[in-house]
């Protein structure tokens, strides 16, 4: 592909790992072979809430082939990324069906399972809390009576003595006063159930602790350094004694962020005399036992003036964090400071409240709370527009954010924040919301409808979250790029190669991104989450390339006897434009050897990092801040659906998406990300929900047969368009978009349902039963004399 210049950023170069993945050469954690591997089985709580009276490991240890068994009293250590509210195994209380209680390591999976089944556990059942309404009642059982004693980052505010693990308040202007001036006041409630990530590769971790005490972990994770850091905090290891290696990862979607199975594997490995131990969950455990997405109950009040401007907006988001909120507390926070979505509301009262329940653990999930709040917000905006008799597209345009407008936290956006208004217009036009939309189906049973929704998200991360890379030239002037951002499918390694090749004017094939993340060898990266990698790692690559270029020019300056600033890097050489003389790169990358035998320079290599600048904490009472987040990415989606009014079934026929991504780095990768996000969004919108059996506290549909995700038959026709308003601190203008692609889809479908049939469903997913019930209710209402409503 060389010979077309070196503007690799923006081109469809071949994925650097494509051949590995189509030949089966790519090894994922479960594909690795370890000599003398031991297999683990985890014993999990069968009750949703109980005091743990006694765990008897004895019978397990007598099963032939068992090497070790471990439970809470052996490793009573806390773990958690933002709030350390969990222990490796339950110690004195279990909090959900699936809570790890003990684990065994054995010569075979069968022996491990047999031993696990013999571990005797005495429980004293406690009243469970299954929903947030109950959890907030003053007399509700406390899921974490010790809440006040947990370690926690300063920007998370648990409320000891309650089930509230975090509460973020947004107060802007004077909501109550503004509401009184409004011509229309519209209130609605919306709900989102817990759902699961369903990566095709279930979680798996292999740990080994050698006889010198060094720890080595191979794991399917999004964040090797965060795994290392949290593991050290948990067990008291020195960071440099822990090596975390992440092979290829079969999808993450947030479920492999933070730390998951690694502490269990480590606790066992510490007792296995240097032998490796593999902890793998099966598909059913993947559904309920590791992590899920939080549920949401939302109540919204919009006060609108005569001109269709929302001037007062109240939002109350109550999150079902499940049994532990270690990560989920930050979803609560992000949803708080983003509570107004893509809109500029002047007077705001926002509350985002995380509540513990005895359900599976809520955690990070692609979008980090944004799809859930956009379900509420974008349904509400549509409902308000219809109620005041305004076109929903026009209503969005009147209220949306843009340069010079302020977010709910008082951040005034500048030009480089992106252009949501144009996204709205493009999507409305692309899906046909701008034309006369008399339903072509006439009065038949299949009704067609169109709808749209916006999306916005910022990276939710510590203000000093860093990415770094190392560039090293080889003798033949090929370049090795090492990073610890994880390619979970999004194409990070390819994108990093594009930036490096462009900056150093190399053929793309000359860049090798072949070190899979390894904390011993590759440089620090905080986490692969938050749609931050192209932006953060891309910047680090450009900086490191700049340093390499400086070294090349300096060596060439000696070689050519010219000042470095008179020279330029060209394809494969450094050139003196005045004399036309040049030195090829392969004579510079290891230093330059003169004819008389003396040498200058040396191996060219550079390490560089990127940390966003100028971020400011939120005000603790009002959450006002001039720059609470590093960047925003805006977008919108429009959908066209058909609804079978006899069955209530919705089919999504077509989706049009538009995002302002700053710079399209790789056209076919970004299309793929967008299509994948849309279909994942469609899944949560139409079919996905973890169903709790309220008698047992178990998840009743923890199989792929019962919990359906979209198949090739469900995927609609999709079109993706992109705007390129450059991000001021983005690498060549790029900003993140990975998560945003699934944010607006469910709300757009719900809005299309109103367009098609005149009924609104307030709770996800939009199952056929709910749609049918809404249609029936409307019919009943009509027969009852409310015709024309």
């Amino acid at each position, binding site marked *: 592909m060389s010979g077309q210049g070196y503007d690799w950023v923006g081109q469809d170069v071949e994925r650097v790992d494509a051949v590995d993945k189509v030949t089966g050469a790519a090894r994922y954690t479960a594909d690795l072979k370890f000599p003398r591997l031991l297999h683990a089985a985890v014993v999990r709580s069968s009750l949703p809430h109980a005091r743990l009276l006694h765990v008897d490991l004895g019978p397990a240890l007598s099963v032939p082939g068992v090497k070790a068994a471990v439970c809470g009293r052996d490793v009573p250590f806390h773990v958690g990324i933002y709030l350390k509210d969990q222990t490796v195994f339950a110690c004195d209380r279990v909090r959900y069906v699936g809570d790890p209680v003990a684990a065994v390591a054995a010569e*075979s999976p069968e022996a491990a399972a047999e031993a696990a089944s013999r571990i005797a556990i005495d429980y004293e059942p406690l009243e469970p809390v299954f929903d947030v309404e109950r959890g907030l009642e003053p007399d509700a059982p406390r899921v974490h009576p010790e809440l006040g004693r947990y370690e926690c980052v300063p920007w998370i505010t648990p409320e000891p003595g309650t089930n509230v693990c975090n509460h973020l308040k947004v107060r802007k202007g004077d909501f109550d006063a503004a509401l009184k001036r409004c011509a229309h006041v519209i209130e609605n409630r919306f709900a989102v159930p817990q759902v699961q990530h369903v990566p*095709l*590769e279930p979680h798996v971790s292999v740990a080994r602790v050698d006889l010198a005490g060094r720890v080595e972990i191979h794991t399917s994770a999004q964040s090797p350094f965060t795994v290392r850091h949290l593991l050290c905090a948990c067990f008291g290891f020195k960071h440099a004694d822990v090596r975390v290696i992440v092979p*290829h990862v*079969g999808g993450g979607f947030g479920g492999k962020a933070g730390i998951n199975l690694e502490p269990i594997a480590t606790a066992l490995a510490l007792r296995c005399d240097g032998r490796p131990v593999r902890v793998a969950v099966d598909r059913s455990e993947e559904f309920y036992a590791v992590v899920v997405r939080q549920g949401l109950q939302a109540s919204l009040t919009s006060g609108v003036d005569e001109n269709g401007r929302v001037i007062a907006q109240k939002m109350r988001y109550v999150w079902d964090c499940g049994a532990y909120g270690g990560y989920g507390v930050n979803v609560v926070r992000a949803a708080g400071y983003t509570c107004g979505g893509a809109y500029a509301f002047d007077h705001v009262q926002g509350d985002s409240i995380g509540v513990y329940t005895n359900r599976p653990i809520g955690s990070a999930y692609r979008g980090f709370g944004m799809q859930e709040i956009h379900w509420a917000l974008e349904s509400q905006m549509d409902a308000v527009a219809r109620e005041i008799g305004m076109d929903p597209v026009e209503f969005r345009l009147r209220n949306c954010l843009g340069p010079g407008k302020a977010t709910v936290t008082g951040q005034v956006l500048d030009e480089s924040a992106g252009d949501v208004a144009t996204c709205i217009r493009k999507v409305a036009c692309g899906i046909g919301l701008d034309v006369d939309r008399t339903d072509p189906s006439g009065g038949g049973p299949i009704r067609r409808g169109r709808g749209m929704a916006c999306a916005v998200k910022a990276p939710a991360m510590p203000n000093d979250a860093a990415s770094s890379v190392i560039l090293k030239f080889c003798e033949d002037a090929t370049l090795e790029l090492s990073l610890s951002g994880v390619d979970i499918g999004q194409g990070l390694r390819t994108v990093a190669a594009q930036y490096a090749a462009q900056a150093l004017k190399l053929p793309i094939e000359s860049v090798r991104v072949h070190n899979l993340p390894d904390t011993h060898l590759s440089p620090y990266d905080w986490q692969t989450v938050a749609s931050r990698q192209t932006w953060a790692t891309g910047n680090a690559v450009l900086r490191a390339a700049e340093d390499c270029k400086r070294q090349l020019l300096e060596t060439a300056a000696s070689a050519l006897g010219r000042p470095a600033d008179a020279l330029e890097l060209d394809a494969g050489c450094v050139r003196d434009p005045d004399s036309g003389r040049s030195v090829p790169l392969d004579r510079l990358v290891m230093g330059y050897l003169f004819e008389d035998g003396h040498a200058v320079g040396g191996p060219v290599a550079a390490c560089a990092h990127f940390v966003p600048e100028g971020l400011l904490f939120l005000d603790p009472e009002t959450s006002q801040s001039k720059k609470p987040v590093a960047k925003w990415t805006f977008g919108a989606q429009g959908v066209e659906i058909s609804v079978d009014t006899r069955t209530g079934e919705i089919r999504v026929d077509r989706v049009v998406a538009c995002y302002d991504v700053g710079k399209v780095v790789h056209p076919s990768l970004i299309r793929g990300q967008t299509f994948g996000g849309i*279909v994942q969004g469609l899944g949560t919108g139409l079919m996905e929900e973890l169903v709790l059996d309220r008698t047992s506290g178990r998840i009743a549909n923890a199989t792929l047969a019962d919990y359906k*995700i979209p198949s*090739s038959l469900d995927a609609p026709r999709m079109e993706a368009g992109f705007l390129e308003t450059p991000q001021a601190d983005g690498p060549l203008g790029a900003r993140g978009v990975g998560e945003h692609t699934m944010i607006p889809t469910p709300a757009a479908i719900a809005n299309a349902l109103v367009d098609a049939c005149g009924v609104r469903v307030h709770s996800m997913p939009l199952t056929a039963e709910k749609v049918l019930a809404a249609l029936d209710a409307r019919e009943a209402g009509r027969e009852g004399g409310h015709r024309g409503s």
Partner: protein
Amino acid sequence: MTTQTGEQISIRVTVNGRVETAELRADRSLLEWLREDLDLTGAKLGCNEGECGACVVLLDGRPVNSCLVLAAEADGREVLTIEGLGRAGALHPLQQAFVDRAAVQCGFCTPGMILCALGLLGENPDPSPDEIRRALAGNLCRCTGYQQIVEAVLDGAGRMREGART
């Protein structure tokens, strides 16, 4: 459940063109045997319940979920795994189409997708997009939204027909 020991059987299977013989427990799945004993890890374990297609291999040219097939059932038959299809520099046209059409993201579903599509193309060398979607309905992908996979199969089918003509 069988534990520790079970009935032992011997099998003789042609895997990727090579005859493999083995003595193994009668209850072991074809997927386990391929992955653990032969180190052919291209076939993935996604669910072990026949619901995801990550484990698809071709058995006598037809796609099967190898997690649901006993190794014993492959006795005397031919198995093709992704490792037998092509390699760098000599990719099968369908693999090349997956590369060129950006039909690969995390890659966990990819071997099963390619083999399932190959099974379809063996019976129907010129499928429509709808026929491709139907054939791949048992192969889940959480990353791509399927659109580029369907494009890749269409493209690969074209390349294969082209190759057959020349």
